[in-house]
């Protein structure tokens, strides 16, 4: 199986940086979600 460039980029990251990237993605999504007033469950 040949890795795609994006997978290589992700795999090369230290676990801590992966957590930072995931955290920032969640932050952008959460901010967008509330600003756009999309429905929230729970």
């Amino acid at each position: 199986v040949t890795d795609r460039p994006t997978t290589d980029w992700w795999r090369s990251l230290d676990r801590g940086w992966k957590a930072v990237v995931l955290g920032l993605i969640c932050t952008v999504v959460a901010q967008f979600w509330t600003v756009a007033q999309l429905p929230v469950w729970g």
Partner: protein
Amino acid sequence: MRTHGFVVGLLLLAVVGVAGWLLGGVTPVPGLVAAVAVGALVGNSVGYPDRLGAGVGTHKLWLETGIVLMGAGIALGAVVEAGPTVLGLVVATVVGTLLFVELLARGVLSVPAKLTSLLAAGASVCGVSAVVSVAGSIDADESHVAYASATVLAFDALTLVAYPPIGQFLGLSDVGFGVWAGTTMFSTGPVTAAGFAVSPTAGRWAVLVKLTRNALIGVVTVAYAMYYARRRRTANDAAPADASGGPGLTGVLSNAPRFLVGFLLLAVLGNTVLSAGAVDMLETASNWLFLLAFAGLGLELRLDDLRSAGLTPMAVLAASLVTFSAAMLVVVEMLF
């Protein structure tokens, strides 16, 4: 085939985490503690195939991501408002607990150095999060991380049950109880639960004080990274220093966990540009990620490892908890 095993491993984390959460809803045991218990039960009874190991192993990533997201909920303004008295009590308790555990465990009872440091960090700052954070910066042994985490979680369960009735029996004020729980209990979840079990005011103060304590995680992690980097360089009989142990501040920073950058960044964003709704969402996401993380921690927990570690570390944390809990009760009675 590898991908299939990875996905099934992730699903196993989710199933165990949700089982813990459901159990937490119908028993006094907090969901996070129940997730560890269910995971440990599964891992040590039926077990799981090796091919699921990679998926289960992602629990460390979920924990670090959960800590990054938790940063958004750190109330920097509230920390300032809490005033110098609370800040002084927090710093005194954290430093006192660190020194007490280090001196008693390593100096008197000959507990291994890195296990001692994990226990000290867990007891003084923020439970399992601190254990994992410090473990990453000092390259601690996996079995020590599991033992320190399990020990901290055991005391979390104990204090969660014991603190509210003791506080009410002693007639502590709501603020007093919040400060007492926030400064001396180990993990954020149980502190929050114990505080709100007494009253909303006690809950708010408990969380505020606990978050102030949690803010010291970076200082403690970097201090330990610095200490162990220096120890590696000066050890004559040790293996040659690895590439991660550079000189001075560079070496310390290269050993420091990267996710702390995200934690601090989210703390700033959470207190400036993010909406309240977004912060709530991130806190919820953080709690769910912790559930996955603790499910994995339980699944990888080997009871044989705990038995071989002995009861000494447990006794050290018990001595530390009793000492600082009693001392802080006296201070709280005088000040609040």
